[in-house]
């Protein structure tokens, strides 16, 4: 059954932290560029005198960087062996795989 191999490969390639970092990072870049170069007086006045695009952009870049660091620091461990096939008759042993690693 292709169960084991597909799971290991999936876990290695796909880390949701990196997807979150990608989204927030791209948002951060766009906002920072907008905030640094393309804000009119009118825009800044609208948001109560705060250049919110710039500040939110920088905040998002920092956040994205932290998530990348976290994902690198604690990469997802690919499960070595899965004892369950996922059928109906799940046995008591499913509770412990985390313990034994």
């Amino acid at each position, binding site marked *: *059954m292709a*169960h084991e191999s597909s799971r290991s490969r999936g876990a290695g390639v796909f880390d949701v932290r990196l997807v979150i970092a990608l*989204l927030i990072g791209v948002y951060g870049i766009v*906002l920072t560029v907008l905030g640094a170069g393309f804000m009119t007086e009118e825009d800044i006045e609208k*948001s*109560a005198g705060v250049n919110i695009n710039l500040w939110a952009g920088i905040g998002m870049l920092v956040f994205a960087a932290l998530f990348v660091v976290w994902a690198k620091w604690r990469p997802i461990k690919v499960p070595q062996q899965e004892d*369950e096939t996922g059928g109906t008759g799940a046995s008591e042993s499913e509770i412990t795989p985390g313990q034994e690693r």
Partner: protein
Amino acid sequence: MDVLAEANLRLDANAVDYVLLAFYFALVLGIGYLARRQVSTSLDFFLSGRSLPAWVTGLAFIAANLGAIEVMGMSANGAEYGMPTAHYFWIGAVPAMLFLGIVMMPFYYGSKVRSVPEFMLRRFGKPAHLVNGISFALAQVLIAGANLFLLASVVNLLLGWPIWVSVVLAAVIVLSYTALGGLSAAIYNEVLQFFVIVAALLPLTIVGLYKVGGWEGLVDKVTAGPGGAEQLSSWPGNQLTGFGDNFLSVLGLVFGLGFVLSFGYWTTNFVEVQRAMASKSMSAARRTPIIGAFPKLAMPFIVIIPGMIAGVTVTELMGENKAALMEGGEAPSGATFNNALLLLMRDLLPNGMLGIAIAGLLASFMAGMAANLSSFNTVFTYDIWQAYIKKGRPDDYYLRTGRVVTAAATVLAIGTAFIASTYSNLMDYLQQLFSFFNAPLFATFILGMFWKRMTPTAGWLGLVTGTGAAVGVFLLAETGVWELPGQGASFVGAGAAFVVDIVVSVVVTYMTQPKPEAQLAGLVYSLTPRETLKHSTSGEDAGWYRKPGLLAGIVLVITIVLNIIF
């Protein structure tokens, strides 16, 4: 800027905003595609193969609930009532979430059931299972329709697309990732959505606070406005409950909202419980709702405070408009509190941030609907199709069934979206559904988990009569026999359902035969060996910061401190 003058809710989005929005949707679909590769069995599809870390399931736990109702409704409540709205978070959610993690999760996760109805099957047998499965599936389709309708009506308001285009488009997007990647895709997207929602609301709150001159400025302005200083502290919350007497108001909040409604919702609603069941170990499952409680505690600050700011700065909502709306009339401006967040975004956010804010709002609406769909397909496939209609097929048959059922549910939800569109106040509609389904379920659960004598017959009879009682209260209120204001009917209905369920269950139990005790191990507290309720404390579950009890204690302390401050 001309657009603003014509339609005052139309946001002035430009190309940059649309690009940011499109990028978000591309990632959402991308997650569905990536998650698909992890799905090879039905357990992968329906419970993510029980493999997710606690922080992921914890955030998904919150995001699944952070739908349209939460974000729009609570900011509207914030604009109308101010800080007392925080009760929906601090009293109405956090204690129940801690209870779920500490007391109930060991039974759910430890007994290896795949759904809440399956727990009913093991504890009470087939009749209770079928009753619960069908009522849950029905409720999910109805609620998914409400979420879909709200999503479409906001898209219609913001961007001017026709309602039916928005309904179908939103349904197709949610369907494509939940049908492809199953629960993993739904959960990963919920986590992504959580961060987008925060990225949208946090800057809005900060700019808003600058606008009113910081917290001090907000205090001054709210005190001076209609509603007065009472709106700045959460207790006793008379305006919110409608009780004139302080004592009754506090009592209503603690027992009505804090006990029956919130425990019923958070501890038995499979939409929520399913997220915890997807986690990789008992310890992670117990931590799921507790980790979720941390952002839940902070949520009022980025949902309610923008609402309050809108109530004192947005022209259409401040002053005489707010006063008129609070008395139940119409504001001269024609705006309602439901528009609070949109109006504040329109007033304060420049292009760029505006696109992210729209993405955040749409994200929150999709989160709710995806959560409904992913729990509906699990219950329908496992608890109705596999249990009663097509038994004993190979696993990939049920995996395919799950995908088909997801598609069918989406089509049904498009239908119920048009039913939901006929209700003027969707919050009433949803509270009503909760009183029908969740309140009796909670009563049956609590009795069944702690009282080993409770019999199978009592299990299903209690559920049926409890739901019947809530429906009865609803009919009395609808026909005007019993005068109950707006959501008062659903509070009374929930109370009646709870009491009737308990009474019927106890009476029936003494007249019928209990199940043999040997069959109840792992399902009833007193018959479960203590070790199976424990979680591992080594390997990936080691460390003080992974102890559910300690985390819950920290949450509790923060909750109490917040209640004292505000």
